[in-house]
């Protein structure tokens, strides 16, 4: 009897071992290939006109790195709709890339997970020193008073893009206040001809929450208090959101169809095709506009205007992409080497143009445009009129809860409903409760 039981047990174990051995074989063979030299895994974000475009732009840059250092880089470009979840899964499972691009507004939230390598003195030195970065850009890298867990890679800022020919034909000047902007947008809207003053990515929670923040900032309101608690329901925030929603609701200068635009590129395409006169976009729109056939001298850029009586003239958040290293990387030195390389003046200059990014290095030249006026406008916005999104761990939840709430409100407006100030306030209360519930 015992022998039989034993036989059975052995048979079962043998089966299982067989299965696990097969699995182990599967994974070890893939590792085997790279055992000769170090291979870094790198997750890049979507900066160019498409995921493929990113790949084309980055491949020669990474090849040059491999040639220089002997370190191979396995790259994957990940779209914005997936990046946050992918990073989250990587943090949870401990199975992530070595180096990853992050939206700089996530920096503090990601820092809180403890999964990323802090750039202390030694690490900073290895990548060329903290002094090489533009200060406000580096400040987005982590919480104040602690070593950042990310360093700036590409700088971005919002601007108001306008179609020069349409403005000229209507005898309009580029707006300097919110009121002028709305007047211009109304003059350029003709729903019968499917022309609108504005295109907004009204179905994108990331875009929506940025403008909740910027409009609130113009009203002098912050979305978090000093302790890091959400303050979404205060008047400045609510009024700011109402102002933004009203572009579609009461001013009617936005095509209701935009409520389905879940990424900025759709609005940019409308602009490039002459369907709309204005868009609000970060400076990387340049690449997409040109790719869609609009010539570079056909559009101009001014700062996103604040209302006449606004408390501040904030026109953007300090937007951009940062680079982080996963703390559990087995190739820390090579990862630092890679970050040093990606943030070196030569590579920055090389990538500045195809990705239309603002320089994150001191004394670097803006490469994203040949138009000195546009360059000056964006650098001025980035350096003097950009406010960093709150550097608190719950910042990412501000983005998702408030952004999603605005998606829903735009959808309600687009489908014929009305969103009152009280509705906005109630939605903000819900968002705030959700953030409190999940952090508290």
């Amino acid at each position, binding site marked *: *009897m015992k*022998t*039989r*039981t034993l*036989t*059975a047990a052995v*048979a*079962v174990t043998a*089966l*299982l071992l067989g*299965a696990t051995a097969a699995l182990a074989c599967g994974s070890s063979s893939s590792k085997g290939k790279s055992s000769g030299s170090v291979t870094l895994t790198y997750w890049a974000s979507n900066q160019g006109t498409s995921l493929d475009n990113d790949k084309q732009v980055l491949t020669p840059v990474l090849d040059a790195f491999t040639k220089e250092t002997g370190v191979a880089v396995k790259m994957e470009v990940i779209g914005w*709709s997936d990046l946050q*979840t992918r990073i*989250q899964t990587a*943090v*949870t499972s*401990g199975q992530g890339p070595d180096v990853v691009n992050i939206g700089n507004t996530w920096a503090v*939230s990601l820092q*809180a*997970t*403890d*999964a990323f390598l802090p750039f202390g003195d030694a690490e900073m030195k290895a990548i060329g020193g903290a002094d090489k970065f533009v200060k406000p850009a580096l400040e987005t890298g982590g919480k104040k008073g602690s070593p950042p867990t990310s360093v700036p890679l590409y700088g971005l800022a919002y601007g108001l893009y306008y179609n020069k020919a349409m403005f000229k034909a209507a005898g309009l000047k580029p707006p300097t206040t919110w009121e002028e902007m709305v007047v211009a947008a109304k003059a350029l809207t003709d729903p019968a001809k499917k022309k609108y003053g504005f295109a907004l990515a009204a*179905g*994108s*929670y990331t875009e929506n929450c940025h403008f909740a923040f910027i409009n609130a900032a113009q009203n002098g309101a912050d979305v978090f208090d000093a302790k890091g608690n959400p303050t979404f329901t205060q008047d400045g925030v609510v009024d700011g959101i109402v102002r933004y929603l009203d572009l579609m609701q009461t001013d009617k200068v936005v095509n*209701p*169809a935009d*409520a*389905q635009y*879940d990424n900025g590129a759709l609005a940019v395409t409308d602009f490039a095709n002459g369907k709309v006169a204005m868009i609000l976009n970060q400076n990387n729109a340049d690449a997409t506009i040109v790719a869609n056939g609009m010539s570079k001298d056909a559009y101009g850029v001014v700062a996103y205007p604040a209302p006449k009586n606004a408390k501040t003239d904030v026109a953007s958040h300090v937007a951009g992409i940062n680079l982080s290293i996963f703390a559990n990387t087995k190739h820390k030195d090579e990862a630092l080497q890679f970050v040093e390389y990606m943030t070196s003046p030569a590579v920055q200059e090389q990538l500045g143009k195809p990705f239309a990014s603002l320089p994150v290095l001191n004394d670097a030249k803006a490469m994203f445009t040949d138009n000195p006026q546009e360059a000056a406008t964006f650098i001025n916005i980035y350096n003097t009129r950009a406010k960093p999104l709150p550097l608190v*761990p719950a910042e*990412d*939840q501000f983005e*998702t*809860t408030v952004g*999603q709430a605005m*998606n*829903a409100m735009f*959808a*309600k407006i*687009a*489908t*014929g*409903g009305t969103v009152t100030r009280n509705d906005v306030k109630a939605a903000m*209360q*819900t*968002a*705030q*409760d*959700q*953030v409190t*519930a*999940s*952090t508290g």
Partner: protein
Amino acid sequence: MTVTSVPSTGAAKGARPAARRAGRRQGWWLPYALLAPAVLLELVIHVLPMLTGIWMSFLRLTKFFIKNWAAAPSAGLRNYRLALDFNAAVGHALLQSFLITCAYAVIVVGVSWVFGMAAAVVLQRSFRGRPWFRTLFLVPYALPVYAGVITWNFMLQRDTGVINHLLADNLGLLSDRPFWLIGSNAFVSLLVVAIWRMWPFAFLMLMAGLQSVPQDVYEASAVDGAHAFRQWRSITLPMLRPVNVVLVLVMFLWVFNDFNTPYVLFGTSQPPAGDLVSFHIYNASFLTWNFGLGSAMSVLLLLFLLLVTGIYLVVVNRRSRRA
């Protein structure tokens, strides 16, 4: 080679008498050995994650602890209190989503069953082109979920979708192009897509069940003067009862837990009208990084479904015993 093979056969011969001595039927262990991989995989794939989920629901598993779960402090019943406090934001949203899902499940299962039954009965008699219809009806079920639903997503677009083109431009039924994927229409779109995906399954199961209903019963009833509907009510339906009991339960559980359809159809900007509960829980966990709260919601969902299944089986079995 020959040298090594000789002792091994000798050992095998020696083992055999020992087995007979044990007094058990030969090969008694075979069923266990064959079941073992299934049981083990079931444990690893279903039971362990479920237990982990229950454990997580009692933790404060927020972003501060997801790197090292073991360090997450206990939350006691806090996550459950949050999820069940229907006056506060989180609980209210969960309740809303739960009610939408109930309506969704009932309608999808009901309509799919009616469609499936109708098609199965019509295709029971052989006629020219029957195989062609059978194949055609199974296409939605054979199509990969993502491919099918993303096609619906394209078709339901407001300005470029073929549905609005058909309804507004070709037929002139609507003067204004409605939105299908945002606002309250989203619920209707979700229903249509889900029924499109689900009814072939009902059709397939009922068609298989109908094969076992003997033809002579119908013939006898026809002699007695029964109409088609009377035949269906008095013969088909009772004979299919065992199939229906399982079919309705399985469909309900699948539809109630449906995640793929809303996820692929709506992407990241899910409309409140299409906020199904598994999607809601996904958002509650991943968008807010609060996996403890998300797990608590999942456990509540599990309890609800267990309860429904239990009641359903008790009621159905009692009725069948009475019959």
